[in-house]
Protein backbone atom coordinates (compact mmCIF):
# COMPACT_ATOMS: atom_id res chain seq x y z
CA UNK A 1 0.00 0.00 0.00
CA UNK A 2 2.82 2.32 0.79
CA UNK A 3 4.33 1.83 -2.62
CA UNK A 4 0.94 2.41 -4.20
CA UNK A 5 0.48 5.63 -2.33
CA UNK A 6 3.97 6.66 -3.38
CA UNK A 7 2.62 6.45 -6.89
CA UNK A 8 0.32 9.38 -6.22
CA UNK A 9 2.85 11.70 -7.80
CA UNK A 10 2.87 9.52 -10.90
CA UNK A 11 -0.88 9.38 -11.35
CA UNK A 12 -2.06 12.14 -13.67
CA UNK A 13 -5.03 13.27 -11.62
CA UNK A 14 -5.82 16.06 -14.03
CA UNK A 15 -6.37 13.67 -16.95
CA UNK A 16 -7.22 10.22 -15.60
CA UNK A 17 -10.38 9.28 -13.73
CA UNK A 18 -8.84 6.36 -11.85
CA UNK A 19 -5.31 5.68 -10.78
CA UNK A 20 -4.01 2.32 -11.86
CA UNK A 21 -0.52 1.10 -12.50
CA UNK A 22 0.33 0.29 -16.11
CA UNK A 23 0.67 -3.30 -15.12
CA UNK A 24 -1.66 -4.37 -12.32
CA UNK A 25 0.44 -7.47 -11.79
CA UNK A 26 2.86 -5.19 -10.04
CA UNK A 27 0.42 -5.14 -7.16
CA UNK A 28 1.24 -8.75 -6.45
CA UNK A 29 5.01 -8.83 -6.70
CA UNK A 30 7.39 -7.85 -4.02
CA UNK A 31 10.59 -8.68 -5.78
CA UNK A 32 12.98 -6.88 -3.52
CA UNK A 33 14.23 -9.23 -0.89
CA UNK A 34 14.25 -7.89 2.62
CA UNK A 35 17.28 -10.11 2.99
CA UNK A 36 18.66 -13.20 1.33
CA UNK A 37 19.86 -16.39 2.97
CA UNK A 38 21.84 -18.63 0.65
CA UNK A 39 19.88 -17.67 -2.45
CA UNK A 40 16.54 -17.69 -0.63
CA UNK A 41 14.87 -14.34 -1.10
CA UNK A 42 13.13 -13.29 2.05
CA UNK A 43 10.56 -10.97 0.44
CA UNK A 44 7.63 -9.17 2.03
CA UNK A 45 5.34 -12.01 0.95
CA UNK A 46 7.61 -14.58 2.58
CA UNK A 47 7.63 -12.47 5.71
CA UNK A 48 3.82 -12.32 5.65
CA UNK A 49 3.60 -16.09 5.21
CA UNK A 50 5.59 -16.61 8.38
CA UNK A 51 3.65 -13.85 10.12
CA UNK A 52 0.43 -15.70 9.27
CA UNK A 53 1.95 -18.87 10.65
CA UNK A 54 2.84 -17.18 13.93
CA UNK A 55 -0.62 -15.63 14.20
CA UNK A 56 -2.25 -19.03 13.67
CA UNK A 57 0.04 -20.69 16.20
CA UNK A 58 -0.53 -17.83 18.65
CA UNK A 59 -4.32 -17.92 18.32
CA UNK A 60 -4.44 -21.67 18.83
CA UNK A 61 -1.87 -21.70 21.61
CA UNK A 62 -3.26 -18.84 23.66
CA UNK A 63 -6.85 -19.93 23.02
CA UNK A 64 -6.35 -23.50 24.19
CA UNK A 65 -3.39 -23.24 26.57
CA UNK A 66 -5.28 -22.94 29.84
CA UNK A 67 -8.09 -25.36 29.08
CA UNK A 68 -10.25 -23.90 31.83
CA UNK A 69 -13.52 -25.43 32.88
CA UNK A 70 -15.19 -22.09 32.27
CA UNK A 71 -13.36 -20.63 29.25
CA UNK A 72 -12.81 -16.93 28.62
CA UNK A 73 -14.53 -15.38 25.58
CA UNK A 74 -11.37 -15.65 23.51
CA UNK A 75 -10.77 -19.27 24.54
CA UNK A 76 -14.41 -20.12 23.84
CA UNK A 77 -14.12 -18.59 20.36
CA UNK A 78 -10.97 -20.54 19.50
CA UNK A 79 -12.43 -23.72 20.99
CA UNK A 80 -15.59 -23.38 18.96
CA UNK A 81 -13.52 -22.73 15.83
CA UNK A 82 -11.49 -25.90 16.36
CA UNK A 83 -14.62 -27.84 17.30
CA UNK A 84 -16.39 -26.49 14.23
CA UNK A 85 -13.64 -27.75 11.91
CA UNK A 86 -13.54 -31.09 13.69
CA UNK A 87 -17.25 -31.75 14.22
CA UNK A 88 -18.96 -29.95 11.37
CA UNK A 89 -16.38 -30.22 8.60
CA UNK A 90 -14.23 -33.29 9.34
CA UNK A 91 -16.80 -35.56 11.00
CA UNK A 92 -19.85 -33.88 9.47
CA UNK A 93 -18.66 -34.34 5.88
CA UNK A 94 -16.36 -37.36 5.95
CA UNK A 95 -18.06 -39.33 8.72
CA UNK A 96 -16.73 -40.75 11.99
CA UNK A 97 -13.32 -41.54 10.49
CA UNK A 98 -13.05 -37.90 9.40
CA UNK A 99 -11.55 -37.13 12.79
CA UNK A 100 -8.20 -38.32 11.36
CA UNK A 101 -8.25 -35.48 8.85
CA UNK A 102 -9.23 -32.80 11.36
CA UNK A 103 -5.64 -31.58 11.98
CA UNK A 104 -5.05 -31.14 8.25
CA UNK A 105 -8.39 -29.39 7.74
CA UNK A 106 -7.78 -27.16 10.75
CA UNK A 107 -4.34 -26.22 9.42
CA UNK A 108 -5.87 -25.39 6.02
CA UNK A 109 -8.69 -23.37 7.54
CA UNK A 110 -6.58 -21.39 9.98
CA UNK A 111 -3.71 -20.70 7.60
CA UNK A 112 -6.01 -19.65 4.76
CA UNK A 113 -8.36 -17.54 6.88
CA UNK A 114 -5.47 -15.59 8.40
CA UNK A 115 -3.78 -15.32 5.00
CA UNK A 116 -7.04 -14.10 3.47
CA UNK A 117 -7.76 -11.62 6.22
CA UNK A 118 -4.36 -10.02 5.59
CA UNK A 119 -6.18 -8.50 2.61
CA UNK A 120 -8.21 -6.29 4.93
CA UNK A 121 -5.71 -5.97 7.76
CA UNK A 122 -4.50 -2.39 8.03
CA UNK A 123 -0.78 -1.93 7.29
CA UNK A 124 -0.59 -5.40 5.72
CA UNK A 125 -3.29 -5.12 3.06
CA UNK A 126 -1.99 -8.03 1.10
CA UNK A 127 -3.53 -11.51 1.10
CA UNK A 128 -0.79 -14.11 0.90
CA UNK A 129 -3.36 -16.41 -0.70
CA UNK A 130 -3.44 -14.11 -3.73
CA UNK A 131 -0.05 -15.58 -4.56
CA UNK A 132 -0.35 -18.96 -6.24
CA UNK A 133 2.13 -20.74 -3.98
CA UNK A 134 -0.19 -21.36 -1.02
CA UNK A 135 -3.45 -22.24 -2.81
CA UNK A 136 -1.50 -24.51 -5.16
CA UNK A 137 0.36 -26.25 -2.36
CA UNK A 138 -2.81 -26.84 -0.33
CA UNK A 139 -4.67 -28.11 -3.39
CA UNK A 140 -1.88 -30.53 -4.22
CA UNK A 141 -1.79 -31.85 -0.67
CA UNK A 142 -5.55 -32.33 -0.73
CA UNK A 143 -5.19 -34.06 -4.10
CA UNK A 144 -2.50 -36.40 -2.79
CA UNK A 145 -4.62 -37.18 0.29
CA UNK A 146 -7.82 -37.98 -1.54
CA UNK A 147 -6.13 -40.01 -4.28
CA UNK A 148 -4.10 -41.95 -1.72
CA UNK A 149 -7.14 -42.56 0.50
CA UNK A 150 -9.21 -43.55 -2.53
CA UNK A 151 -6.76 -46.27 -3.55
CA UNK A 152 -6.08 -47.33 0.01
CA UNK A 153 -9.76 -47.76 0.88
CA UNK A 154 -11.02 -49.17 -2.40
CA UNK A 155 -7.98 -50.54 -4.21
CA UNK A 156 -8.09 -50.39 -7.97
CA UNK A 157 -11.88 -50.23 -7.92
CA UNK A 158 -11.48 -46.59 -6.92
CA UNK A 159 -10.13 -45.91 -10.41
CA UNK A 160 -12.35 -48.37 -12.29
CA UNK A 161 -15.44 -47.15 -10.43
CA UNK A 162 -14.69 -43.66 -11.67
CA UNK A 163 -13.89 -44.41 -15.32
CA UNK A 164 -16.44 -47.24 -15.72
CA UNK A 165 -19.37 -46.22 -13.45
CA UNK A 166 -21.78 -49.17 -13.14
CA UNK A 167 -24.74 -47.01 -12.22
CA UNK A 168 -24.68 -45.22 -15.59
CA UNK A 169 -26.29 -46.75 -18.74
CA UNK A 170 -23.66 -48.52 -20.80
CA UNK A 171 -24.03 -46.19 -23.79
CA UNK A 172 -23.01 -43.17 -21.69
CA UNK A 173 -20.63 -44.99 -19.42
CA UNK A 174 -17.43 -44.19 -21.32
CA UNK A 175 -18.38 -40.50 -21.59
CA UNK A 176 -19.23 -40.13 -17.94
CA UNK A 177 -16.05 -42.08 -17.16
CA UNK A 178 -13.90 -39.62 -19.06
CA UNK A 179 -15.64 -36.63 -17.47
CA UNK A 180 -15.27 -38.13 -14.00
CA UNK A 181 -11.64 -38.99 -14.53
CA UNK A 182 -10.75 -35.55 -15.82
CA UNK A 183 -12.76 -33.71 -13.19
CA UNK A 184 -11.48 -35.79 -10.30
CA UNK A 185 -7.80 -36.11 -11.14
CA UNK A 186 -7.09 -33.05 -13.23
CA UNK A 187 -9.65 -30.34 -12.57
CA UNK A 188 -10.19 -30.69 -8.83
CA UNK A 189 -6.73 -29.50 -7.76
CA UNK A 190 -6.77 -26.71 -10.33
CA UNK A 191 -10.23 -25.43 -9.45
CA UNK A 192 -9.55 -25.71 -5.74
CA UNK A 193 -6.43 -23.58 -6.06
CA UNK A 194 -7.73 -21.12 -8.61
CA UNK A 195 -11.00 -20.50 -6.77
CA UNK A 196 -9.17 -19.27 -3.69
CA UNK A 197 -6.39 -17.52 -5.57
CA UNK A 198 -8.66 -15.71 -8.06
CA UNK A 199 -11.05 -14.50 -5.38
CA UNK A 200 -8.23 -12.97 -3.41
CA UNK A 201 -6.51 -11.51 -6.47
CA UNK A 202 -9.76 -9.83 -7.54
CA UNK A 203 -10.43 -8.56 -4.05
CA UNK A 204 -6.95 -7.19 -3.57
CA UNK A 205 -7.03 -5.53 -6.99
CA UNK A 206 -10.35 -3.83 -6.36
CA UNK A 207 -9.44 -2.64 -2.90
CA UNK A 208 -6.07 -1.31 -3.99
CA UNK A 209 -7.32 0.50 -7.08
CA UNK A 210 -10.43 1.95 -5.47
CA UNK A 211 -8.97 3.03 -2.17
CA UNK A 212 -5.70 4.25 -3.68
CA UNK A 213 -7.54 6.20 -6.39
CA UNK A 214 -9.92 7.66 -3.87
CA UNK A 215 -7.09 8.69 -1.61
CA UNK A 216 -4.94 10.09 -4.41
CA UNK A 217 -7.72 12.20 -5.91
CA UNK A 218 -8.99 13.51 -2.59
CA UNK A 219 -5.51 14.32 -1.30
CA UNK A 220 -4.62 16.28 -4.43
CA UNK A 221 -7.54 18.66 -3.97
CA UNK A 222 -5.04 21.52 -3.70
CA UNK A 223 -3.77 20.92 -7.26
CA UNK A 224 -6.88 19.95 -9.13
CA UNK A 225 -9.65 21.66 -7.18
CA UNK A 226 -13.14 20.39 -7.89
CA UNK A 227 -11.83 17.42 -9.84
CA UNK A 228 -10.86 15.87 -6.52
CA UNK A 229 -14.52 14.94 -6.08
CA UNK A 230 -13.85 12.04 -8.45
CA UNK A 231 -12.06 10.38 -5.57
CA UNK A 232 -15.13 10.34 -3.36
CA UNK A 233 -17.14 7.61 -5.14
CA UNK A 234 -13.97 5.54 -5.51
CA UNK A 235 -13.31 5.82 -1.82
CA UNK A 236 -16.90 5.06 -0.77
CA UNK A 237 -17.10 2.17 -3.20
CA UNK A 238 -13.76 0.92 -1.93
CA UNK A 239 -15.00 0.95 1.66
CA UNK A 240 -18.07 -1.03 0.60
CA UNK A 241 -15.85 -3.57 -1.13
CA UNK A 242 -13.67 -3.63 1.98
CA UNK A 243 -16.57 -4.93 4.08
CA UNK A 244 -17.51 -7.35 1.32
CA UNK A 245 -13.95 -8.65 1.19
CA UNK A 246 -14.03 -9.53 4.88
CA UNK A 247 -16.93 -11.85 4.07
CA UNK A 248 -15.09 -13.21 1.02
CA UNK A 249 -11.96 -13.88 3.06
CA UNK A 250 -13.84 -15.94 5.65
CA UNK A 251 -16.03 -17.64 3.07
CA UNK A 252 -13.16 -18.70 0.82
CA UNK A 253 -11.26 -20.15 3.77
CA UNK A 254 -14.38 -22.11 4.67
CA UNK A 255 -14.93 -23.24 1.06
CA UNK A 256 -11.41 -24.58 0.49
CA UNK A 257 -11.60 -26.46 3.81
CA UNK A 258 -15.07 -27.79 3.06
CA UNK A 259 -14.15 -28.90 -0.46
CA UNK A 260 -10.99 -30.60 0.78
CA UNK A 261 -13.21 -32.55 3.17
CA UNK A 262 -15.73 -33.32 0.44
CA UNK A 263 -12.98 -34.62 -1.86
CA UNK A 264 -11.65 -36.89 0.87
CA UNK A 265 -15.21 -38.04 1.57
CA UNK A 266 -15.75 -39.04 -2.09
CA UNK A 267 -12.61 -41.18 -1.82
CA UNK A 268 -13.65 -42.78 1.45
CA UNK A 269 -17.16 -43.53 0.18
CA UNK A 270 -16.87 -43.43 -3.64
CA UNK A 271 -20.35 -44.83 -4.19
CA UNK A 272 -21.94 -41.62 -2.87
Amino acid at each position, binding site marked *: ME*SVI*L*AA*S*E*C*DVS*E*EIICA*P*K*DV*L*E*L*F*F*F*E*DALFTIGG*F*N*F*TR*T*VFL*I*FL*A*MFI*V*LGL*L*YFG*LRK*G*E*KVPSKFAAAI*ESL*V*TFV*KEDIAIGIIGPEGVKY*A*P*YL*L*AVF*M*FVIVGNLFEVTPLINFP*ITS*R*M*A*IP*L*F*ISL*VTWVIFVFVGFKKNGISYLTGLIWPKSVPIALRWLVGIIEFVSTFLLRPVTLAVRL*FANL*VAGHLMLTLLLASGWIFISSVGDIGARAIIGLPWFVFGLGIYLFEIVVAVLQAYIITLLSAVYVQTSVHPEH
Partner: protein
Amino acid sequence: MFASATPWLLATEAAEESEGIDLLLPESSELIAGIIAFAIIFFFAWKWVFPTITKTLESRQAAIKAGFEAAEAAKVEAESLKNDYQAQLAQAREEAGRIVEEARQAGESVRAEVVARADVEAAAIKERATADMSGERDRVAASLRREVADLSLDVAEKVVGSSLDRASQQALVDRYIDELGGLGS
Protein backbone atom coordinates in the same frame (compact mmCIF):
# COMPACT_ATOMS: atom_id res chain seq x y z
CA MET B 1 1.65 9.19 -16.71
CA PHE B 2 3.71 6.43 -15.14
CA ALA B 3 7.33 7.28 -15.33
CA SER B 4 9.21 4.03 -15.61
CA ALA B 5 11.92 4.89 -13.13
CA THR B 6 9.55 5.72 -10.36
CA PRO B 7 8.80 3.96 -7.12
CA TRP B 8 5.43 2.74 -8.40
CA LEU B 9 6.60 -0.55 -7.21
CA LEU B 10 10.02 -1.07 -5.94
CA ALA B 11 10.55 -4.09 -8.13
CA THR B 12 10.16 -2.40 -11.45
CA GLU B 13 12.58 -4.34 -13.62
CA ALA B 14 11.10 -7.75 -12.98
CA ALA B 15 7.56 -6.46 -12.87
CA GLU B 16 7.80 -4.87 -16.27
CA GLU B 17 8.62 -8.18 -17.77
CA SER B 18 5.86 -9.97 -15.89
CA GLU B 19 3.16 -11.61 -17.91
CA GLY B 20 -0.26 -12.74 -16.74
CA ILE B 21 0.99 -16.29 -16.54
CA ASP B 22 3.53 -15.24 -13.93
CA LEU B 23 0.69 -14.62 -11.54
CA LEU B 24 -0.34 -18.26 -11.90
CA LEU B 25 3.10 -19.68 -11.34
CA PRO B 26 4.21 -19.99 -7.74
CA GLU B 27 7.29 -18.12 -6.66
CA SER B 28 9.76 -20.67 -5.37
CA SER B 29 10.65 -18.72 -2.22
CA GLU B 30 6.96 -18.31 -1.40
CA LEU B 31 6.31 -21.96 -2.08
CA ILE B 32 9.11 -23.02 0.25
CA ALA B 33 7.95 -20.57 2.93
CA GLY B 34 4.36 -21.72 2.50
CA ILE B 35 5.29 -25.38 2.80
CA ILE B 36 7.35 -24.76 5.93
CA ALA B 37 4.69 -22.56 7.54
CA PHE B 38 1.88 -24.95 6.66
CA ALA B 39 3.81 -27.98 7.87
CA ILE B 40 4.49 -26.30 11.22
CA ILE B 41 0.82 -25.37 11.62
CA PHE B 42 -0.21 -28.90 10.67
CA PHE B 43 2.15 -30.53 13.18
CA PHE B 44 1.06 -28.11 15.86
CA ALA B 45 -2.59 -28.87 15.13
CA TRP B 46 -1.92 -32.60 15.04
CA LYS B 47 0.36 -32.98 18.05
CA TRP B 48 -0.87 -30.23 20.35
CA VAL B 49 -4.21 -28.62 19.40
CA PHE B 50 -6.38 -31.71 19.18
CA PRO B 51 -4.94 -33.61 22.15
CA THR B 52 -5.23 -30.42 24.22
CA ILE B 53 -8.77 -29.57 23.23
CA THR B 54 -9.88 -33.18 23.66
CA LYS B 55 -8.44 -33.18 27.17
CA THR B 56 -10.06 -29.82 27.96
CA LEU B 57 -13.46 -30.86 26.65
CA GLU B 58 -13.32 -34.19 28.46
CA SER B 59 -12.40 -32.61 31.77
CA ARG B 60 -15.09 -29.98 31.26
CA GLN B 61 -17.60 -32.70 30.46
CA ALA B 62 -16.58 -34.58 33.60
CA ALA B 63 -16.87 -31.40 35.66
CA ILE B 64 -20.31 -30.60 34.28
CA LYS B 65 -21.43 -34.17 34.82
CA ALA B 66 -20.11 -34.11 38.39
CA GLY B 67 -21.88 -30.80 38.93
CA PHE B 68 -25.15 -32.21 37.71
CA GLU B 69 -24.76 -35.31 39.83
CA ALA B 70 -23.95 -33.21 42.90
CA ALA B 71 -26.99 -31.06 42.20
CA GLU B 72 -29.10 -34.17 41.82
CA ALA B 73 -27.78 -35.59 45.10
CA ALA B 74 -28.38 -32.27 46.84
CA LYS B 75 -31.90 -32.23 45.48
CA VAL B 76 -32.58 -35.74 46.74
CA GLU B 77 -31.11 -34.84 50.12
CA ALA B 78 -33.18 -31.68 50.28
CA GLU B 79 -36.24 -33.70 49.37
CA SER B 80 -35.64 -36.20 52.16
CA LEU B 81 -34.86 -33.39 54.61
CA LYS B 82 -38.10 -31.73 53.63
CA ASN B 83 -39.98 -34.96 54.18
CA ASP B 84 -38.31 -35.34 57.55
CA TYR B 85 -39.25 -31.83 58.51
CA GLN B 86 -42.78 -32.35 57.37
CA ALA B 87 -43.04 -35.54 59.36
CA GLN B 88 -41.61 -33.82 62.40
CA LEU B 89 -43.93 -30.90 61.91
CA ALA B 90 -46.93 -33.20 61.67
CA GLN B 91 -45.76 -35.04 64.76
CA ALA B 92 -45.31 -31.76 66.62
CA ARG B 93 -48.75 -30.62 65.57
CA GLU B 94 -50.24 -33.87 66.76
CA GLU B 95 -48.33 -33.56 70.02
CA ALA B 96 -49.57 -30.03 70.49
CA GLY B 97 -53.11 -31.10 69.75
CA ARG B 98 -52.79 -33.90 72.21
CA ILE B 99 -51.39 -31.59 74.89
CA VAL B 100 -54.16 -29.07 74.33
CA GLU B 101 -56.74 -31.82 74.50
CA GLU B 102 -55.24 -33.17 77.70
CA ALA B 103 -55.16 -29.72 79.22
CA ARG B 104 -58.71 -29.17 78.17
CA GLN B 105 -59.74 -32.44 79.74
CA ALA B 106 -57.77 -31.70 82.87
CA GLY B 107 -59.38 -28.28 83.07
CA GLU B 108 -62.74 -29.84 82.52
CA SER B 109 -62.25 -32.34 85.33
CA VAL B 110 -60.87 -29.69 87.66
CA ARG B 111 -63.88 -27.54 86.93
CA ALA B 112 -66.28 -30.42 87.49
CA GLU B 113 -64.52 -31.25 90.74
CA VAL B 114 -64.61 -27.65 91.88
CA VAL B 115 -68.27 -27.36 90.97
CA ALA B 116 -69.09 -30.62 92.70
CA ARG B 117 -67.23 -29.58 95.82
CA ALA B 118 -68.93 -26.18 95.76
CA ASP B 119 -72.26 -27.91 95.36
CA VAL B 120 -71.50 -30.15 98.28
CA GLU B 121 -70.37 -27.24 100.41
CA ALA B 122 -73.35 -25.17 99.40
CA ALA B 123 -75.66 -28.01 100.26
CA ALA B 124 -73.94 -28.43 103.65
CA ILE B 125 -74.17 -24.75 104.34
CA LYS B 126 -77.78 -24.72 103.34
CA GLU B 127 -78.50 -27.73 105.46
CA ARG B 128 -76.75 -26.27 108.43
CA ALA B 129 -78.67 -23.02 107.97
CA THR B 130 -81.90 -24.92 107.63
CA ALA B 131 -81.09 -26.94 110.74
CA ASP B 132 -80.18 -23.79 112.65
CA MET B 133 -83.33 -22.13 111.50
CA SER B 134 -85.62 -25.03 112.38
CA GLY B 135 -83.94 -25.38 115.83
CA GLU B 136 -84.52 -21.74 116.45
CA ARG B 137 -88.08 -22.02 115.30
CA ASP B 138 -88.68 -24.99 117.56
CA ARG B 139 -87.12 -23.17 120.45
CA VAL B 140 -89.19 -20.06 119.73
CA ALA B 141 -92.30 -22.16 119.24
CA ALA B 142 -91.70 -24.04 122.53
CA SER B 143 -91.05 -20.86 124.39
CA LEU B 144 -94.08 -19.30 122.80
CA ARG B 145 -96.20 -22.27 123.64
CA ARG B 146 -95.09 -22.17 127.32
CA GLU B 147 -95.71 -18.51 127.40
CA VAL B 148 -99.20 -18.90 125.84
CA ALA B 149 -100.07 -21.76 128.20
CA ASP B 150 -98.88 -19.78 131.21
CA LEU B 151 -100.82 -16.77 130.12
CA SER B 152 -103.91 -18.87 129.39
CA LEU B 153 -103.72 -20.51 132.80
CA ASP B 154 -103.17 -17.18 134.44
CA VAL B 155 -106.22 -15.85 132.66
CA ALA B 156 -108.25 -18.93 133.46
CA GLU B 157 -107.17 -18.84 137.16
CA LYS B 158 -108.17 -15.27 137.29
CA VAL B 159 -111.48 -16.19 135.68
CA VAL B 160 -112.28 -19.17 137.95
CA GLY B 161 -110.54 -17.68 140.90
CA SER B 162 -108.80 -20.83 141.88
CA SER B 163 -105.71 -22.58 140.86
CA LEU B 164 -106.20 -25.21 138.38
CA ASP B 165 -104.30 -28.46 138.11
CA ARG B 166 -101.41 -26.82 136.59
CA ALA B 167 -99.86 -29.90 134.91
CA SER B 168 -103.05 -31.25 133.27
CA GLN B 169 -104.11 -27.82 132.16
CA GLN B 170 -100.71 -27.25 130.69
CA ALA B 171 -101.08 -30.49 128.63
CA LEU B 172 -104.45 -29.41 127.45
CA VAL B 173 -103.21 -26.09 126.20
CA ASP B 174 -100.31 -27.76 124.49
CA ARG B 175 -102.61 -30.15 122.70
CA TYR B 176 -104.75 -27.29 121.56
CA ILE B 177 -101.77 -25.38 120.25
CA ASP B 178 -100.59 -28.47 118.49
CA GLU B 179 -103.93 -28.78 116.81
CA LEU B 180 -103.75 -25.17 115.75
CA GLY B 181 -100.21 -25.74 114.50
CA GLY B 182 -101.46 -28.81 112.62
CA LEU B 183 -104.14 -26.75 111.00
CA GLY B 184 -101.75 -23.94 110.26
CA SER B 185 -99.01 -26.02 108.77
